[in-house]
């Protein structure tokens, strides 16, 4: 995949022009007349993949199109074992690349999985919606010959340390408020496109995926005594835009890409099938330490409101030096739309908002631009219910399944959190060790170098000049 690959495509030979993709696109990037093949405006497109999820126009697998099918699978970057019909809207695959590197014993292969993979991967093997399989997932990745099975959830805990400290600093100084989360690459791309003048309101934190990648090729490389350039870093994500994010120019550390390849939940499932691994009967295996140990707070990043909830759990205790009275913050949990709350933290009344679904964010941005936005901290996720509903997740064929599936995946995320012994990022022993041995302190010099970033003006006038 190159930086120029728009990642989301509509196959004009298959598109019937029903325009349901245009109806779910949060940024009006799908252009065309009803009844005619649609095209995507790559400038506006935030690569969220919701169009890929909703599309039902397809080429079925029958004899007359078999040759064509093989060509299309190759073009789409999918493995030839994929038997499902080819849908008109699709995302570029990178699984062939990963398969090739996995067969190379000279490379040191490191993998990370987003919080929302372990609640949905099992669906691809016929298990019910929301079946929770972190242990089988780790086992499958080990069978695939990854050398280290790490976890994005660990980096989600790091994100809370960095972003939480950043928020506290900004609230105390009253500067650059409100602060927006920067974990969701589709939201970041959208902000860069439509509101470049407000980019200083975004947290300077990289997303957990990129933080993880940066730590693998520094701290992780040191621990394993491996040269960073020998590490091949793969991320399994519920999100098609993560492919875009990992290819951003600035996402490198000491000259190495932080994340070399991103594959989606569906791509991982197809690789597991391709390798003949019996996923359902795998034993539960642990992630590798230390970059695979996470708290409950890290695991709820996969749902809308999760970053907010995790940040409040830690922020509350860092500011007040007291235990937070209740770990389950129902006021930020929910679904598509905007939710707001006021949280009493010591003497501070923290005003927060959670935006799920990118179409709701423009009203918030307008308020920030006119200086009347009352919130301190705003979480934005581009997909309707956060990453559990991402464009790279197992495809839901029918609208009737959508609500049920999202609900089941979400409750699995919260169930996973509630069963963790450690449920606050700052109490994760491996996070404490990471700061003690390597990073120093949140927002310190090393953190700044590895874990924070700058955003780019992508407005059209910039592109044209």
């Amino acid at each position: 995949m190159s930086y120029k690959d728009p990642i989301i495509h509509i196959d004009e030979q298959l598109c019937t022009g029903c325009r349901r993709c245009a109806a779910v696109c949060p940024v009006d990037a799908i252009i065309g007349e009803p009844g005619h093949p649609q095209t995507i405006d790559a400038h506006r497109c935030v690569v969220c993949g919701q169009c890929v999820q909703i599309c039902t126009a397809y080429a079925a697998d029958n004899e007359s199109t078999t040759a064509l099918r093989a060509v299309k699978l190759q073009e789409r970057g999918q493995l030839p074992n994929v038997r499902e019909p080819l849908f008109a809207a699709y995302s570029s695959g990178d699984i062939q690349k990963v398969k090739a590197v996995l067969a190379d014993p000279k490379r040191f292969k490191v993998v990370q999985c987003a919080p929302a993979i372990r609640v949905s991967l099992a669906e691809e093997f016929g298990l019910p919606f929301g079946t929770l399989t972190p242990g089988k997932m780790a086992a499958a990745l080990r069978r695939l010959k990854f050398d280290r099975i790490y976890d994005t959830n660990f980096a989600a805990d790091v994100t809370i340390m960095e972003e939480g400290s950043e928020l506290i600093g900004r609230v105390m100084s009253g500067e650059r408020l409100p602060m927006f989360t920067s974990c969701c690459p589709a939201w970041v791309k959208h902000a860069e496109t439509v509101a470049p003048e407000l980019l200083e309101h975004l947290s300077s934190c990289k997303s957990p995926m990129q933080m993880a990648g940066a730590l693998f090729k520094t701290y992780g490389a040191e621990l394993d005594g491996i040269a960073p350039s020998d590490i091949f870093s793969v991320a399994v994500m519920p999100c098609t835009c993560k492919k875009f994010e990992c290819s951003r120019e600035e996402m490198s550390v000491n000259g190495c890409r932080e994340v070399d390849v991103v594959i989606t939940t569906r791509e991982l499932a197809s690789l597991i099938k391709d390798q003949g691994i019996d996923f359902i009967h795998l034993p539960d295996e642990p992630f590798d330490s230390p970059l695979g140990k996470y708290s409950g707070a890290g695991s709820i990043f996969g749902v809308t409101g999760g970053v907010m909830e995790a940040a409040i759990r830690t922020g509350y205790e860092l500011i007040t030096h007291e235990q937070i009275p209740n770990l389950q913050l129902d006021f930020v949990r929910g679904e598509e739309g905007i939710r707001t709350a006021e949280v009493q933290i010591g003497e501070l009344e923290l005003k927060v908002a959670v935006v799920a679904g990118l179409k709701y964010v423009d009203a918030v941005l307008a308020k920030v631009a006119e200086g009347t936005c009352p919130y301190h901290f705003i979480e934005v996720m581009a997909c309707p219910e956060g990453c559990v509903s991402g464009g790279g997740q197992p495809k839901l064929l029918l609208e009737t399944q959508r609500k049920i599936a999202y609900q089941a995946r979400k409750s699995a995320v919260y169930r996973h959190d509630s069963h963790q012994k450690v449920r606050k990022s700052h109490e994760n022993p491996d996070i404490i060790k990471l700061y003690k041995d390597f990073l120093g302190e949140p927002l310190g010099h090393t953190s700044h170098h590895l874990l924070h970033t700058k955003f780019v003006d992508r407005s059209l006038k910039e592109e044209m000049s």
Partner: protein
Amino acid sequence: MNRFVIADPDKCIGCHTCEVACVVAHAGNNMFLQEESGADFYPRLTVVETGEVTAPVQCRHCEDAPCANVCPNGSITNKDDSIFINQDSCIGCKTCMLVCPYGAITMVPAHKGGQKQLQSGLRSNTAGSWSRKERIVANKCDLCEGSGNGPECVRVCPTNALQFTVPSQIEDSISRKRLASAQSLLQFGGFPHL
């Protein structure tokens, strides 16, 4: 009168959701889970697209069903106000497919338990090697008889372009038309010398 599903071409947007739903309703398992040997994607309705019209076409469950009238071994019967193909006894002769005026019948490999069924006697020579030949049977809309929810295509259509028509609805519609017709006679009232 037999029940049937019919589409409104003005509402159909050609999205193929009905076909996908049909497969999901009949495959018994998720189509993303198919093994290579058991690829089983046979919608029982077909979205037709031309420059002028977009609409799914499926079995009309004809009262004087031509398919049933020509079936040489009685595999097509009238059952619960619908035309039903017994795929267990179907011999794949294609006569029903030829006579169907709507093109609603297709021939598909027979499946049982996710596996393609093979014929016991007939061998097939492909590229010089012999193998058993799969059993092919007639396939068409069965109004999702097994699901208990009625036709899945009707439930999922995002524009409500499909309608499940049952005899009582037709009778209501006919009596409404008769009423309107009677009322329209009022304006001609009192033909004195007829």
